[in-house]
């Protein structure tokens, strides 16, 4: 065994790569501010920005909050995905998986049908039911008489998701096909078109605190991916620490989903890319997932708002691009997960 494999970079190389991705992200955010369809499709020249009042308002009141939410969206889903995959020791779970996504979808649909499409009501209801999804899953897992703690959560998550998804189906069936149904459908496809500063500020504190918790506890994630009794033997409190990290992941996910709608695949695919580039050690994989997720979110939203004259729902883009990435990654060797 003389040739070390690709995942054995030293810490400095990993740090340098992270810095590179962070720089790319910075450039992407800056460019995204200038890209759009005003005054004509393409880029606003920076000197025009200094003089054109309307250009300033578009950039700072419309594009900036939207880009920041796209950033938060990508980061939250990716970080939560990394947390979920490690804690469940399963590379195929995503952050919506404990009843969170379907809960949010149910909440939003319910709000659209019962109280019309008032934005803040839809957002609040989606967030509320996202947490309700997690709560039901957790309670169900505690009462299940089957398997270990992780398997019970998986089982509960699947059951609760199915219940909420049945609920969404029923609501869609009852919805007014001319006004409410399209609205529900668009929400389920995801989109950032209606984002302005109030939406950003409504999610920023939750997202920031949650991501901070995940970032600071990232080395513990490695420990929590082991069996309960082993993690316990190393002085961890597996149940409590897992609950804390999962709650942080779910809180961030619920917050961004409540304003952006359903955005699939990011939380599944980005942690894989991060592990592929940085190895399985969460010390590097989690910051990598945050940065790559942010980049992915910003770029997808750029395409969503600029490619066509009309808005493309971002969920379609993330699924399309994410799935293509996924296929490429699984056709290439060495994705940071055991080969069975």
């Amino acid at each position, binding site marked *: 065994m003389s040739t070390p494999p690709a995942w054995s970079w030293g810490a400095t190389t990993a740090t340098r790569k992270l810095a590179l991705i962070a720089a790319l992200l910075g450039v992407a955010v800056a460019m995204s501010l200038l890209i759009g369809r005003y005054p004509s499709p393409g880029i606003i020249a920076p000197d025009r920005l200094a003089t054109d009042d309307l250009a300033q308002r578009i950039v700072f009141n419309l594009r900036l909050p939207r880009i920041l939410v796209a950033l938060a969206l990508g980061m939250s889903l990716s970080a939560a995905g990394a947390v979920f995959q490690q804690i469940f020791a399963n590379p195929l779970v995503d952050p919506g998986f404990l009843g969170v996504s379907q809960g949010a979808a149910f909440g939003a649909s319910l709000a659209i049908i019962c109280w019309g499409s008032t934005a803040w009501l839809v957002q609040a209801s989606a967030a509320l039911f996202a947490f309700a999804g997690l709560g039901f899953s957790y309670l169900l897992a505690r009462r299940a008489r089957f398997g270990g703690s992780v398997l019970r959560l998986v089982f509960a998550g699947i059951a609760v998701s199915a219940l909420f998804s049945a609920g969404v189906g029923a609501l869609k069936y009852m919805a007014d096909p001319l006004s409410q149904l399209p609205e529900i459908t668009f929400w389920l496809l995801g989109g950032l078109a209606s984002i302005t500063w109030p939406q950003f500020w409504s999610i920023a504190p939750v997202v920031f605190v949650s991501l901070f918790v995940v970032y600071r506890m990232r080395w513990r994630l*490695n420990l929590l*991916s082991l069996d309960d009794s*082993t993690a316990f033997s190393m002085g*961890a409190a597996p149940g409590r620490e897992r609950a804390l990290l999962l709650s942080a992941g779910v809180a961030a996910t619920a917050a961004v989903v409540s304003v952006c709608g359903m955005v699939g695949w990011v939380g599944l695919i980005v942690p894989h890319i991060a592990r592929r580039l940085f*190895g399985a050690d969460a010390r590097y994989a989690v910051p990598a997932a945050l940065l790559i997720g942010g980049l992915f979110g910003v770029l997808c939203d750029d395409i969503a708002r600029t490619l066509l004259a009309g808005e493309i729902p971002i969920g379609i883009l993330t699924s399309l691009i994410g799935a293509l990435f996924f296929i490429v990654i699984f056709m290439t060797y060495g994705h940071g997960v055991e080969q069975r």
Partner: protein
Amino acid sequence: MTALLTFDDVTFGYGSGTRPVLQGLSLDIDGGTATAILGPNGVGKSTLLHLALGWLRARSGRILLDGRPLNAYPRRQRGQSMALVPQVERTPFDYSILDYVLLARAPYLAPLAMPGADDERIAREAIDEVGLGQLCNRAITTLSGGERQNALVARALAQQPRLLLMDEPTSHLDLAHKVRLVQLVRDRLARGMTVLLTTHEPDVAAAIATHLVLMRDGQVCGSGPLAEVFTADNLSATYGVPVQIARVDGRQAVLWT
């Protein structure tokens, strides 16, 4: 002198209302010994180990570490005192051996701290000690069963415990690795560590242990220094099949059928 680890009339069962796995078990493990818990499959050996770890809680009776009830220890202090080598460990992510062994430093670190240079040095020493030094950066998922078991041992050593718990540590090891493990345990004993291991192989127990605990039906049916307990009669009674003990060059081997 009080024992390092004491089981005092311990009864344990999985779930309430079920038949107990361990019934009124009492046991003393003295410091500086290597005690092998020997018995047929499914007799409660691993259960006993997990009780010693504090992961399982006894239905009744007390388990004391250094004369102090196990559940009175703070988590990190317990993690610094005891390490576990599990029988198998499922790990879907390909951590490098070094990353994997570094996890053992957790009980010495504050909850949000990350391992530093000292921790890495300790981890590397442990990896060298089990003979995986050349493979430090290999992914654990690419290791053979034996190498993986050695990585688990290295991780437990990096935890620098006073009491090392090993659950069937030789189950995946070939002859050369078994010899190496026996030597490693003897070396650690000489440096004052206490070892408690389970095994269903009498030969392994005879090679590693200074003391022996024979288990049958959730009860201790014999315990004491190896020389006194390792007899044909005792082993025949433990396993329920007639066995003989052959002495070759001062070593003991179990013959069956």
